[in-house]
């Protein structure tokens, strides 16, 4: 681990009882949903992590506790450091407090995660879907959401499939 990163991870460990893992030189710190806003505020104000570079989630279905990880990739421009925070979220009623008051990037990123994974962000100022059209059911990036396919039409079943195909007909 980077020398400059060590005291930061240590503070997070002491303050939030956080665990961490290292993989290919990256540090991933696990905190709970209740602590995330406080942890992000601490990192931004005290350790100069000015930017939330990326924010996404990952689905571990069929595992339910935790089913998701919400991932916060933070960058410090002054210190040239990166750290990743991960928040495990359970499958029933996935909820995380919003980080929009700490980083404004989180506004659209959280809308995207809600859209794609169905994780709710409590206190979000604009909780609408962002990428998918109105009226879509489900959350596409969940592992139990089918990728979708088109049935191949042959001469013998062309009309049968054509009848249930969802496109405008004359």
């Amino acid at each position: 681990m980077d020398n400059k990163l060590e005291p930061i991870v240590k503070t997070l460990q002491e303050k939030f009882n956080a665990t961490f893992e290292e993989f290919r030189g990256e540090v991933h710190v696990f905190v709970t949903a209740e602590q995330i806003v406080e942890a992000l505020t601490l990192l931004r104000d005290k350790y100069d992590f000015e930017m939330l570079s990326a924010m996404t989630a990952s689905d571990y279905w069929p595992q339910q506790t935790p089913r998701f990880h919400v991932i916060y990739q933070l960058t410090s421009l002054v210190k040239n450091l990166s750290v990743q925070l991960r928040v495990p979220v359970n499958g029933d009623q996935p909820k995380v407090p919003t980080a929009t008051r700490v980083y404004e990037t989180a506004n659209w990123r959280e809308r995207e995660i809600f859209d794609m994974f169905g994780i709710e962000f409590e206190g979000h100022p604009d909780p609408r879907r962002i990428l998918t059209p109105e009226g879509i059911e489900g959350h596409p990036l969940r592992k139990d959401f089918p990728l979708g396919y088109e049935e191949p039409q042959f001469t013998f079943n062309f009309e049968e499939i054509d009848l249930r195909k969802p496109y405008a007909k004359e």
Partner: protein
Amino acid sequence: MTQIEEVSLEQFKHLVSERALRGETMLLNMGPQHPSTHGVLRLLLELDGETIVNAVPDIGYLHTGVEKNMEAKTYLKAEVMSDRLDYMNPLGNNLAYCMAVEKLVDLDVPPRAQALRVILVELQRIASHLVWIGTFGLDLAAMSMFLYAFREREAILDIFELCSGQRMMTTYIRPGGLWRDVPVEFETAVRNFIKMFPKRIDEYEALLTKNPVFLDRLVGIGKLDAATALSHGVTGPTLRASGVNWDLRKARPYMGYEQYDFNVPVRTEGDTYARYLVRVQEMRESLKIVEQALNKLPMGPVISANRKFVPPPRSELGVSMEALIHHFKLWTEGFPAPKGSVYSAIESPRGELGVYLEGDGGPKPHRVHWRTPSFDNLSVLPKIVKGHLVADLVAILASIDIVLGDIDR
């Protein structure tokens, strides 16, 4: 199919001012089919006369589910989708994805491949900035700029075609190196471009930089301060025009960028004109990098010889049983990647292009996330257009250089 509901003002009332609800301001729809939205971006504008009170971007018209689709393909096959995200920067997307794969499976890249990657990606940056300067001029009614910029871009695309057979969706950069070595004509083609291009940038600058009409439209318009930019995750030339010196090629060098001598243009004004100046200067700097990389281009292989991850060349298949087995296994089953996740980022023409790649021990990625620069850069738009005229919105939107394929993924 579910019924599509009609959108009512009720849904947007937290995004517009109270005057809109009383009918004192006008709500105007701009896009998604509008020549100056650079793709299919829809903006809901709240206007007081010609002045913008609020702007609400509506994105997702180009959403193609690339992240979901990549989860269903092997690491090698998923790369083809990366070209299609930011269609102004296909080689940069290839590089970002390949670097993530290389980091995940711990794969080395030979020096020649690294240098060639730098040359190609810097040429791609120039091509992307050329499209930007052309459309920027077009939006501000400088029609000839568009024609000049596309003429030079064609020369770069010809170089890509020379290497890969494709002008745009090349998939030329592969995990472990490059698809194949560049042809012998490559060096001459790039040298011709290096010789011709500085004069052409001078021409563009003669047309635009001190043009009074151009200055009137740009100076002081769409000011973005550094703190807002950082909080919104704005990166790339847009951030550097606001006085923050942050370029991943300098801060966290990859592919041997530390060997090359180049400057990172930074302006402090933060307005539309500063963003224009930064990009024009960046084209000159990219050209410097291309020239240096070409001058000391090392010889040697262009792709790693690690057969557990890199398919063998075609020529080996007829003579080596092992090669045939590797070829078969890598193109059908694919290679397994360890359990774990990596985040790897490059400096694309628009900013930090990051790939979050998670492996689960199998041959397909568990999760691929594209941290695309345009997405965060666009999110700052509502802040910087307030109080400007609709005509200025066109200039501001063009100056942050969004690509909708990059935003919607």
